[in-house]
């Protein structure tokens, strides 16, 4: 499922290719991405295979919010071929913004991955339950550490 690739620091970096069943909102043309680990970090880069200049920072949802839970719609479960939660990996997109003064996580639209097939989809949760910009870290906090 994953292949270790040596980078210039001679430490192995996991690379996993995901196949999005539909392009993500705002990036509709792209459906193939590779999940690349950042050494010593819980954050990954979701690198766009067809447009190498584009990459999204993502993290495991449970690392951002341990109590995060939602119901996948039948439409999305069918699209991903998912029979149950244990087959799913949930990632959230991080936004790093100087203008906003920190890092936020998009809990409104998680990326759900079928662990077995590596099919993926960014699903949008209706119902106002989770925010588009969940505060993860402010740059002021970071500066104090």
């Amino acid at each position, binding site marked *: 499922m994953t292949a270790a690739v040596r980078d210039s620091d001679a430490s192995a970096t996991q690379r996993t290719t995901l196949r999005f069943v539909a392009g*993500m*909102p*705002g*990036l509709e043309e792209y459906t193939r991405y590779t999940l690349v680990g*950042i050494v*010593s*970090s*819980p*954050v990954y*880069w979701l690198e766009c295979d067809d447009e190498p*200049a*584009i*990459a*999204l*920072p993502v*993290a*495991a949802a*449970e*690392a*951002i*919010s*341990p*109590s*995060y839970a939602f119901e996948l*719609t*039948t*439409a*999305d479960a*069918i*699209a991903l071929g998912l029979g149950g939660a244990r087959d799913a990996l949930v990632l959230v*997109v*991080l*936004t*790093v*913004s100087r203008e906003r003064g920190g*890092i*936020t996580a*998009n*809990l*409104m*639209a998680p990326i759900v991955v079928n662990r077995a097939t590596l099919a993926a989809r*960014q699903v*949008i949760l*209706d119902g*106002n*339950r*989770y*925010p*588009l*910009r*969940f*505060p*993860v*870290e402010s*740059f002021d906090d*970071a500066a104090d*550490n």
Partner: protein
Amino acid sequence: MLILTRKPDQRILINDDIVVTVLAVDGDRVKIGISAPAEVSVLREELQRAVSGENRTAAARGPERRTLERSLLGLRLATAAAATPTADQGKP
């Protein structure tokens, strides 16, 4: 775009298996009911638009990536004390 005018309780049929019902009209708000097969996705458009904007902001393009990575490297995550999200944070 097909434009139709409906009164409350009137319906629109789409594709043999989707039914849109105008349930009520109250001032400038319309309550709409949608019956569709489970595999058909139904979503408020402004949410799609908000996610689209946020994805574009989040995407690092080219040389930005090194800068963003520096901000991300120090991130400490997954502590038991991590805040539980509340509905009034950062609503679009």
